[in-house]
């Protein structure tokens, strides 16, 4: 961390306190993101995005404001602080005001920081070239994105918090598109170079593209659906958002009024980890300075808890789970407990079903009850009596996420990290089999 920035943090906190802040936090995040995008088997653009931002939370007389700036010149910060205090004075006090957590705290000493990812500026181009060289260019078009990120952050609060964190991550989302209507998608996500498998993901996407070519006719109806980890991750992400106590309090969560109730089959256990190896959003502190931790959301099918910051925790009569967002708590890294089925055993459970390998565009008719539809994309297959029969395409799944969780019939053993364009909260999940899902096609 640039010492000048550290000094600035301390000065901002001092100034805010002098100006009457009852609570304040100052968070500096320095990020360097490297990106290589490719399509049609060629690199289309390389990017380096270097940003440093200063995020401040200020509370005076129960009036609350959060603010962020990327103008880190001395004059810019002085203007920023004055404007912040002036803006705060114009607000009305909120009954939701809750003091920031009082430290000092003890933080986890580990981190997800791989120096090779932070320092090697040519790494991504080399890895993308290896991936592009892997596939037969006359048969498949590859498109995708490889990116790596190095984040250093520091937080200071009026609650005696002063701590730092640093982390790295790397990910690939790759799609292979064939000539005969087939396409495949896969991802690889890691925080350490050793856990990153760009060639495996590329090979898998390519295999799926070839296997899904020449899709055949299929009938609309109710099917048992095998959600590959990429698809399962999207649904788990929706459950993670719905577990935010802010969403519950706002009345827009399908997990509202369900605490300690059975919301899923016994086979589902879901946790959120503030820190976990290869969890791309791992961090040692939340935005209020609390040490992050492991939280259970669903245990053996029972909703055990929501995700809280200090404000929602006070409102719900509990303690923070260290998931702040000052305004809204959010999941960090969602982890589904592995089940007892290997891939083959899980498929054997399917009498008449569909295997979906990727999806996008999950949208809710009624967020409060979880009624949704989503579009499988890329390879999908009809499964009959435990055997993959043939590829299909043009399908849509619909139902209610709550009902779907109660119809989970099997959970796989092997888990994978998923994070890509559609799944923005990292999820570690196995394959999941859900009974009786409505599958339709367009008119």
């Amino acid at each position, binding site marked *: 961390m640039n010492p000048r920035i550290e000094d600035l943090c301390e000065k901002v906190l001092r100034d805010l306190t002098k100006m009457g802040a009852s609570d304040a936090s100052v968070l500096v995040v320095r990020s360097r993101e490297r990106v290589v995008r490719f399509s049609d088997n060629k690199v289309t653009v390389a990017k380096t995005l270097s940003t440093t931002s200063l995020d401040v939370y200020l509370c005076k007389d129960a009036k609350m404001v959060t603010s962020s700036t990327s103008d880190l010149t001395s004059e810019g910060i002085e203007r920023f602080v004055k404007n912040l205090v002036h803006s705060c004075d114009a607000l009305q006090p909120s009954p939701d005001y809750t003091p920031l957590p009082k430290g000092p705290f003890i933080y986890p000493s580990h981190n997800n920081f791989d120096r090779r990812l932070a320092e090697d500026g040519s790494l991504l181009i080399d890895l993308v070239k290896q991936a592009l060289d892997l596939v037969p260019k006359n048969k498949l078009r590859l498109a995708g994105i490889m990116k790596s990120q190095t984040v250093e952050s520091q937080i200071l609060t009026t609650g005696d918090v002063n701590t730092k964190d640093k982390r790295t991550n790397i990910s690939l989302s790759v799609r292979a598109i064939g000539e005969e209507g087939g396409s495949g998608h896969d991802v690889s996500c890691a925080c350490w170079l050793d856990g990153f498998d760009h060639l495996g993901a590329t090979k898998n996407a390519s295999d799926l593209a070839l296997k899904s070519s020449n899709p055949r006719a299929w009938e609309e109806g109710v099917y048992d659906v095998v959600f590959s980890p990429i698809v399962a991750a999207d649904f788990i992400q929706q459950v993670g958002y719905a577990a935010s106590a802010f969403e519950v309090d706002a*009345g827009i969560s399908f997990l509202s009024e369900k605490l300690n109730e059975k919301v899923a089959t016994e086979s589902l256990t879901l946790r959120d980890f503030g820190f976990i190896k290869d969890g791309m959003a791992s961090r040692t502190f939340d935005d209020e300075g609390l040490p992050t931790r492991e939280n259970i959301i669903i245990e053996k099918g029972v909703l055990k808890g929501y995700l809280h910051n200090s404000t929602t925790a006070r409102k719900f009569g509990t303690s923070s789970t260290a998931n702040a967002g000052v305004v809204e708590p959010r999941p960090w890294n969602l982890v589904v407990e592995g089940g007892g089925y290997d891939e083959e055993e899980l498929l054997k459970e399917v009498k008449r079903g569909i295997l979906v390998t990727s999806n996008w565009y999950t949208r809710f008719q009624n967020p409060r009850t979880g009624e949704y*539809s989503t579009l499988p994309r890329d390879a999908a297959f009809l499964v009959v009596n435990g055997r993959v029969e043939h590829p299909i395409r043009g399908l849509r799944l619909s139902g209610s996420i709550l009902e779907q969780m109660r119809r989970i019939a099997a959970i796989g053993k092997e888990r994978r990290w998923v994070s890509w364009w559609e799944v923005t909260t990292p999820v570690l999940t196995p394959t999941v089999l859900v009974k009786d899902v409505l599958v339709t096609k367009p008119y």
Partner: protein
Amino acid sequence: MNPDLALYAVKTADGQGASFSEARIHELNETTVLLKNGEPQPAQLISSKGIGIRVYHRGGLAFAATNEATYEGIRNTVEEATRIAASSGTVVNSGVGLSFEKSVEASWRAEEKENIEDVGLEEPTKILKELDGILKDEFDGLMFTHRLLTLSLTLEEKFYVNSEGSKVQSRVPRVSFSSYLTTNVEGVPITITIPPGYSQLGESGGWEVVKRLKLHEYVLEEAKRLAYVLKMRRASPRGVLDVILGPNVVGLVAHESVGHPSEADRILGREAAQGGESYLKPKDIGLKIGSEEAYVSDDPTIPHSMGFYLYDDEGVAARKRRLVERGVVSSFLHDRQTAFKFKIESNGASRSSSFDREPIVRMANTFVEPGDHTLEELIEGVSYGIYIKSFMEWNIDDRRLNQRYVGLEAYLIENGEVKHPIREPIVELDTFTLWKNLDARAKDIEFNAATCGKGEPMQPIAVWTGGPSIRLRAIKVEAR
């Protein structure tokens, strides 16, 4: 940020041998006021300011961004951009280039009668409190027990310069409102949004926008009508029926099934791993996709629109684009990269959402052109069908063919008359079926504000979607 830094960036790239370079100082200031169940949540003041630099060098394209506003910071960023352009161009020749466009010097701004920077937080908070006061009333025995209201004020300012001599300065303020409301109908909790379809009520302009939108009247009327619909609705008919779609739905249909597939970068496969590809191929100008009533355009120059601009983020003059005329594909949306591949000129569709995002092809305000009929005439022509005025759930596949819209405010039509509200009718149909079965357009064009997502890293961008009421013949209607 000092404009000289942008000029310095281009000069530095030139000195390093870049064949083309551009720099964009891009500043976004956003104030968001949030009220949850009547209680103020922390107000949010977000300011993002920095410089995005794009270079072509040794066969490669690179984009680099920084918010370090010093000559040293800029020089380092340009050096990084030229280095990664050269390495990507060497490793895999990407064959990228830019169309020829004449250079311009321009300064433009959206109309702004009451300066948005003078507003502060007091007035927006007061307005949200008033709106919450309206919404917490009882509507025919139905209460919105949970209310999440948002009012956002945004100011976007840019200074663009490129190595061909273009210099463009701009300023666009925007104001928008959105809300989530939850009620309970016969024991079933229901969350809706006002405006429906997770959209916003918004325009470009200064604080005068709040008065122009007549927010209080709009929210009251919409809440009353939606409460009535939720309370009174009966089961939706199923089967192959005539369907009238209102402007709220039509705007989305235009955006999703014509706007996105007309983006030339998507047609060329550049977004294949993210937002997907398109049912349109490069040779598909002239392809018939709909009836003679199908007219879809995109126009960034509509005053007060959320997607308003006069020059795009490559310094190309904005213009109206007719995407579909008489059912035939008439043009695509281009930036200079895609125009180069098509060997034509750009039609000014390049936009970036912030300083650290690469400019790419984007829609601005996409809409179905209005027709000559009244809504009543459309309804009179239906003996048995449905009228979907607004929606909640929607989605479309990654080639933009398989789409679904689920009604929120919807009614039965019998013998040319609108009857009782119906519960969440579903139309799930193919793009070509949709546009080929369009037989009439009304005059009642309206626009909704929305945030369009595209690109990776993600670039949320302000747009309008719009159109008049339209009538589709013989569409399959389902219900949950």
